[in-house]
């Protein structure tokens, strides 16, 4: 049983092992310890751990977006709200209560999950009856409203936000980055497995039915509103956990976590990687974020003229996006899978 599972998922097993040893491998190659130098977060391994944690965060965010968009067929423009809520709740708990360390962290995580679930249910109940583009617009409006409030409210320290100083040492990314790296990696793996389980369950089958043809799904007896609500709520909870990891990595939470880019980025990553596939959002997140990081400072000389890649990153991304949509209409993973099915026939 276990052997069969491992054999049929060899790709994921190999990838997982690679990601586990990667910080040590980078440390070994570069000569910089993966634990930092004398407790300080410096060196190649530490640097790449930080970038990979960001990739994991974006991948989890994109996977949660894909649950709603790719598997259930609901287009929400308000996903940043869930991402941002996670960070803010932890910030508020650590700042305004006497809770610190593990207790503060645990309560912050618990509250984050509860609040994002309630938000998902309430927003879903109010808006899911709206059709297509109206739903998308309403979710955008709600998320933007939170963004504006949180960037002005005294309670949330307006533009400044909070610094997260009272984190336990073992999770503090400046002191124990490698541990934090494994925590983020664990969240990625658990999210991946969870979504796969969900989609293969009877409930997941209904989500696909809603995406394919909601009217027919209702006609054969599914209360489709409930299933869309479930998808939005579960996805919101996952996104809020991604937001938590992000703010712990930054050791700061501010209005930028609620920025609309935290909706647009996972949307683009999902489409580029392949909406409605399991690996697509992960590949999209890794590709876009690593591309951004690697090319950010690149300046290429073309016959005397120098092109600053970093400064034109948005433009390049736009072109890549158009190309992907033209060449890979079902995203990278989706198009590849279709191609392989055709080869097999």
């Amino acid at each position, binding site marked *: 049983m276990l052997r069969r599972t491992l054999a049929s998922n060899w790709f994921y097993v190999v990838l997982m092992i690679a990601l586990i040893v990667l910080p040590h491998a980078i440390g070994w190659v570069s000569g910089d310890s993966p634990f930092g130098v004398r407790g300080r977060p410096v060196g190649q391994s530490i640097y790449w751990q930080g970038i990979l944690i960001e990739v994991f965060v974006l991948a989890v965010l994109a996977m949660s977006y894909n649950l709603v968009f790719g598997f259930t067929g609901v287009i929400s423009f308000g996903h940043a709200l869930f991402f941002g809520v996670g960070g803010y709740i932890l910030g508020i708990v650590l700042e305004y209560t006497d809770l610190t360390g593990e207790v503060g962290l645990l309560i912050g995580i618990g509250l984050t999950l509860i609040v994002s679930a309630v938000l998902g249910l309430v927003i879903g109940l109010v808006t899911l009856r709206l059709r297509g583009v109206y739903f998308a617009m309403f979710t955008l409006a709600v998320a933007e409203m939170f963004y504006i409030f949180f960037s002005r409210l005294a309670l949330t320290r307006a533009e400044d936000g909070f610094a997260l100083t009272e984190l336990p040492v073992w999770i503090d990314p400046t002191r124990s980055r490698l541990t934090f790296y494994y925590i983020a990696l664990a969240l990625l793996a658990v999210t991946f497995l969870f979504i796969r*389980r*969900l989609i*293969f*369950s*009877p*409930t*997941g*089958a*209904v989500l*696909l*039915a809603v995406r*394919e*043809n909601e*009217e*027919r*799904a*209702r*006609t*054969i*007896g*599914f*209360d*489709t509103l409930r*299933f869309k609500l479930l998808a939005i709520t579960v996805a919101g909870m996952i996104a809020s956990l991604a937001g938590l990891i992000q703010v712990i990595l930054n050791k700061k939470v501010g209005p930028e976590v609620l920025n609309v880019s935290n909706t647009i980025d996972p949307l683009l990553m999902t489409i580029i990687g392949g909406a409605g596939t399991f690996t697509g959002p992960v590949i999209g997140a890794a590709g876009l974020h690593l591309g951004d990081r690697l090319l950010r400072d690149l300046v290429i000389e073309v016959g005397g003229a120098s092109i600053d890649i970093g400064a034109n990153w948005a433009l390049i991304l736009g072109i890549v996006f158009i190309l992907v949509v033209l060449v890979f209409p079902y995203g990278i993973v989706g198009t590849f899978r279709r191609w392989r099915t055709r080869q097999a026939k």
Partner: protein
Amino acid sequence: MQENILLETRDLRKAFGGLIAVDGVSVKVAQGSMHSIIGPNGAGKTTFFNLLTGNHAATSGNVLYKGQDITHLPLHRRAHLGIGRSFQITNIFPNLTVLENVRLAAQALGGDNYRLFRRADSFQRYIQRARQVIDLVGLNAETLLPATVLPHGGKRKLELAILLASDPELLLLDEPTAGMASEQVPELIQTIDRVRRQGGKTIIMVEHNMSVVMGVSDRITVMNQGRLLAEGTPAEIAANKTVQSVYLGELYGDLNEAAGGSHGV
């Protein structure tokens, strides 16, 4: 003999803005009967179905099922009461396999929809039910194909299989043979009639193919411009002068021309 009324409508109306698509229709459908609805294009037959199932909300009037007023019940609740339908314009899950299309319909009323952590394919009873129905309509060879690649006739069969999978008591069939090759029509109609007799089902069928309608119906309701024009046994309808002038003559003409007996949308 007192007949058991399964479904009844009372003065049912549906207005789309100024257009009254269904205009005060009252009918009674006896349990276990094959009740056909005929009428020219735009008569309001499909809209009438939509009011029975809840795909559209009635403007006024009532729908009673087993004596219970279901006029304002949502779509999915009516499915749980045992009302199923097929669509005139094929309405399937295009990117799912034929098996999954039918399996979903079998799962829908089974009470396992919120089993988040078990695999859907571990519920053998839904898969068995789906395979049984796929066999019944004759789609075995296409079981694992995505629904969207089926030819038109195959999609019509799938449409029927999705309806049959949930084993409803009342089946609403909206032009089940629409666009099918004529040589496939008798077989499909026989399948439908067999399902009704063996399962003691009640069927309301909209159908343009007159030989089919006259052959299998217990009663026929004729609609025209949203109104009920006539109702009776096939013999009574065939003899009805108004029906002949408004509808039958015209359609029998059509039927002779279009050898397929099929009817466009």
